[in-house]
């Protein structure tokens, strides 16, 4: 009878419109600057084409391997119950907020030239493997995205009602039939979205390519922008590459929008289902192996960062602590900017049917950080010293990059809140700040804390725009750590990596726990 979606009461729309316009203006002005400055007459050189090819090839491999491996891992997690399962599922969420450069250091310790794997191979008399080049980049991307894909698929798996499994058990269906009747249709639904998401994320990969790629055979577009900019100071070529990056990543992101599933970072995945199938010893053994492999693959690099970092803490120079302070400032600024932009935008989106404003948030996902950085550099350079603005620009870009995720966290909860309590608020004539202060912010508190933690951690660990803008006097912690690695001061870099890891996870924990503490249902 009554269409409740129509009757919900919305907070004022204009602040959200203003925030959305600001986001669009920030991104579109960078785009305009890049297009204006792009030297189209020169076209794309051989190096550019090979960067495009490498970008697509590595993203394809990364997506296929991440999701392909996630299928058996998610399946094993979905149908097994064991001590530490909840902890492992939580751990699967960690790589998303892990500073890329710190994790790369861990991967180097395990798979690098003198890493644990090569030590083992050497003891067996086998030839060493190299982590640099295509397979190194793909390895790192799988490290980051296998857990993400596993969580997405696990979510899909757990959406199968328990009654279906009961029915399957009642009919005494074997593992193959359970797979065909229940799991295959589900995979057909969930896998394309997961593939698309990982592919888009890997298309704009920079820090991984910077550290493990490089050279003519392993340069992503994002890295090529950086090199054109930093080594050749060829703004025209950087601009051309930025346009290419935008067309490629933006195009794929827009296409993938229809596939990409709602990202749920929340809890609930730790709820194990009662299953009656797959009780055979072989099935159990196989699941155990998958879970063990995934855990080891996830934990080893982290253990390596921890071990090397503790050993290297004494070698950390003062510049690292200065950079750490700068990074904390950048992360907190990003959180503040995110709050100012995301809350009004969420309030604009939540009462309405899906539409344009959400797309503005996703602009940030399709526009790569280095493209935005290049554009703003072009705009800022004639009027001010870009290096002086390195930290504010980094904070702002990091907030924009977090925005699509943050909106997906905030909007559903805000929508529910308005549906449940919008009428009551309106009946009591609550509006403006009173509505935010007494209803919306308290109801959003856990989600807001989670979103702030995510933004802070991503911003803390980001190595992107800062690499374009910074001069030797200014650096964030990830950049300072990269410089130490470039100077082969690996002990100091390991110490910095540990500090970075602690800061990123710490900022996440502080906000997330702060949001959940005292939140009433």
């Amino acid at each position, binding site marked *: 009878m009554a269409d409740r979606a129509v009757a919900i009461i919305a907070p004022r729309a204009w602040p959200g419109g203003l925030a959305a316009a600001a986001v669009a203006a920030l991104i579109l002005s960078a785009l305009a600057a890049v297009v204006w400055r792009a030297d189209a007459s020169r076209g794309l050189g051989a190096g550019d084409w090979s960067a495009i090819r490498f970008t697509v090839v590595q993203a394809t491999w990364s997506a296929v391997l991440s999701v392909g491996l996630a299928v058996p891992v998610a399946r094993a997690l979905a149908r097994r119950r064991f001590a530490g399962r909840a902890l492992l599922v939580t751990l699967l969420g960690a790589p998303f907020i892990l500073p890329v450069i710190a994790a790369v250091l861990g991967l180097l310790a395990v798979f690098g030239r003198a890493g644990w794997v090569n030590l083992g191979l050497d003891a067996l008399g086998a030839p060493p493997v190299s982590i640099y080049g295509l397979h190194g980049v793909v390895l790192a991307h799988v490290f980051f995205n296998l857990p993400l894909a596993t969580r997405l698929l696990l979510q899909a798996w757990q959406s199968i009602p328990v009654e279906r499994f009961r029915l399957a058990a009642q009919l005494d269906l074997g593992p193959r039939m359970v797979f065909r009747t229940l799991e295959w249709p589900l995979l057909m639904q969930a896998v394309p979205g997961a593939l698309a998401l990982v592919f888009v994320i890997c298309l704009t990969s920079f820090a991984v390519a910077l550290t493990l790629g490089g050279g003519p055979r392993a340069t992503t577009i994002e890295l090529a922008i950086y090199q054109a900019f930093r080594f050749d100071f060829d703004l025209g070529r950087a601009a051309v590459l930025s346009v290419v990056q935008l067309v490629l990543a933006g195009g794929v992101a827009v296409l993938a929008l229809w596939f990409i599933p709602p990202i749920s970072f929340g809890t609930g995945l730790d709820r194990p289902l009662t299953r009656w199938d797959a009780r055979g010893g072989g099935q159990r053994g196989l699941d155990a192996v998958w879970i063990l492999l995934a855990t080891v693959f996830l934990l080893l690099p982290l253990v390596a960062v921890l071990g090397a970092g503790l050993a290297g803490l004494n070698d950390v120079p003062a510049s690292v602590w200065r950079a750490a302070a700068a990074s904390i400032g950048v992360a907190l600024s990003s959180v503040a900017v995110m709050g100012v932009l995301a809350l009004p935008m969420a309030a604009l989106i939540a009462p309405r049917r899906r539409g344009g404003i959400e797309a503005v948030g996703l602009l940030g996902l399709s526009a790569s950080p280095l493209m935005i950085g290049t554009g703003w550099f072009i705009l800022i350079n004639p009027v001010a010293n870009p290096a002086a603005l390195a930290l504010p620009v980094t904070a702002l870009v990091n907030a924009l990059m977090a925005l699509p995720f943050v909106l997906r966290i905030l909007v559903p909860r805000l929508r529910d809140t308005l549906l449940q309590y919008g009428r009551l608020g*309106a*009946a009591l*004539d609550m509006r403006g700040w009173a509505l935010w202060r007494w209803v919306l912010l308290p109801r959003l508190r856990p989600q807001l804390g989670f979103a702030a933690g995510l933004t802070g951690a991503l911003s803390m660990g980001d190595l992107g725009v800062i690499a374009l803008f910074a001069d030797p006097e200014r650096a964030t912690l990830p950049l300072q750590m990269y410089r130490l690695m470039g100077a082969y001061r690996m002990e100091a870099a390991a110490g910095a990596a540990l500090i970075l890891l602690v800061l990123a996870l710490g900022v996440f924990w502080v906000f997330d726990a702060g949001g959940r503490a005292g939140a*009433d249902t």
Partner: protein
Amino acid sequence: MQGGAPVLTLDRVTIEQGDFRLEADLTVASGRKVAVIGPSGAGKSTLLGAICGFVPLASGRILWDGGDITRTAPGRRPMAMLFQDNNLFPHLSVAQNVGLGLRPDLRLSPADRDRIALALDRVGLAQYAGTKPGKLSGGQQSRAALARVSVQARPLIVLDEPFAALGPALRRDMLELVRDLTAEQGASLLMVTHTPDDVRLIADDVIFVDGGRAHAPQPAADLLDNPPPALRAYLG
């Protein structure tokens, strides 16, 4: 129709929602307690929602004391409404929830606080002022919501079955509280109900909603003792 001068007038009101259509052309007199009854899906809640400003009108006007309130925001209308559920904010204390009836921004003066304490005392919740609603029983939650209605002190109280989830005895208690409240404040009452017992307990008049039409209020006793065919079919 008896009682005082008309205070609420629905002037050739129509509500349309997709295929659903409801017409109402009626007045409610000052101080009357009116039950709204009818089959489920007939549009009782929609009618109350329209009166309180939550459902837009397709045509017609709503008048209060002769003044047009058709476009007035819900919170600025002269009525206090309780919904079927979600009448209290679960993250605010009982006292804060009641306080919202006085000040939507909760900037409460000492006098305001005294009124809140008095209202809570009246409904027997004095010792629960600092408690969150989730810790209260269903009946206590209803009392807290009624305490807020009492401090709002609006001339029309609108109830969209807020006590439907309570057992018969508790519901009766609540209705008696409502009756005392209206008597004390001289307020009019509009309430949706499903049970003829409730109508006999509290209502002076009945608005029967059926077949896309909200009929004008009829004296409750007459209507229940001598129902027209449609109402008889509904009552069974």
